[in-house]
């Protein structure tokens, strides 16, 4: 039998994969630390040297800025954490085989720091407004208590795959 802590961790991983359709190399949430359905989520993503951005980067860096984890992926990881919160809040009648989660809009997203391989991104996302098939989130991303990104507003929407395919 597995120790209870490990059982929780493994169940958590399966739950993340049940809720998010994303897979390697685009599944960018490793663990859910705290979840309050309808309210907020804390989730973690470890940045590793084995990921695509670092496989792609070549040669000596002339500064740390060029080796910081791409902002686009910090945003994606945050949105995936928000997506888990969305699904766990039962707002969408979501079926991962039929639906797809789309990034609708973003506003006031400030980059205040950088993350590097070895760092853990800690996402804190809150639901600002929820509708039947979309929701507005706000939040922050921190590394070791240091904020690296603040987000005033992200809009995510659930859409039928068939409709996206035809659009």
């Amino acid at each position, binding site marked *: 039998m597995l120790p209870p802590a490990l059982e929780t961790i493994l169940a958590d991983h399966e739950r993340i994969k049940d809720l998010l*359709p*994303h*897979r*390697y*190399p*685009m*599944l960018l949430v490793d663990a859910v630390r705290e979840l309050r359905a309808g309210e907020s989520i804390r989730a973690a993503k470890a940045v590793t040297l084995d990921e*695509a*951005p*670092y496989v*792609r*980067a*070549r*040669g*000596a*860096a*002339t*500064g*740390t*800025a*060029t*080796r*910081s*984890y*791409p*902002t*686009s*992926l910090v*945003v*994606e990881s945050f*949105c995936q954490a928000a997506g888990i919160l969305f699904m766990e809040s039962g707002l969408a009648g979501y079926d991962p085989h039929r639906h*797809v989660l*789309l*990034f*609708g*809009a*973003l*506003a*006031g*997203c*400030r*980059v205040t720091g*950088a993350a590097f391989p070895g760092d853990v991104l800690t996402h804190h996302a809150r639901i600002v407004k929820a509708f039947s098939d979309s929701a507005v989130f706000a939040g922050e991303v921190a590394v070791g208590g240091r904020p690296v990104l603040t987000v005033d507003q992200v809009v995510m929407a659930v859409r039928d*795959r068939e409709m*996206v*395919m035809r*659009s």
Partner: protein
Amino acid sequence: MSPIELGELARPLDAVDAIVHRDEAAITTVKAVSGSEPFCAGHYPGFAIYPGVFVLETVHQSVLQHVAAGGADWRKARLREIRSARFLAPLRPGDVLRTQCRCSLSADGTELKVQATCRNAERVSAEVRLRYAIGERG
């Protein structure tokens, strides 16, 4: 015009294939969304969509190309804010993303504001506004 190599930059993909126009105040780039890009396997399995954040990445790399083409060091341009982004239509393999960025540098040369319109054929796929600090290499 060929884009310069962003060799040392940690980036999820090369998000600009070519520069089709560039002047002091603007750059237009193209990126063909290919089904053989690694992201397709995971975003999403059996149903590839160019991630919205990769549209942001295409705009970002277009801005770095704009800075480099102006004779400055692209490493000094640091993304500080995604002021807004609206994703209007998802892109799928076979689509070609055409990104037009209007770039305005502040009088003291320390801040760059960018307004980008991304089209797939004639249809607007996304609108993005970014702000950069232009400073020393970090």
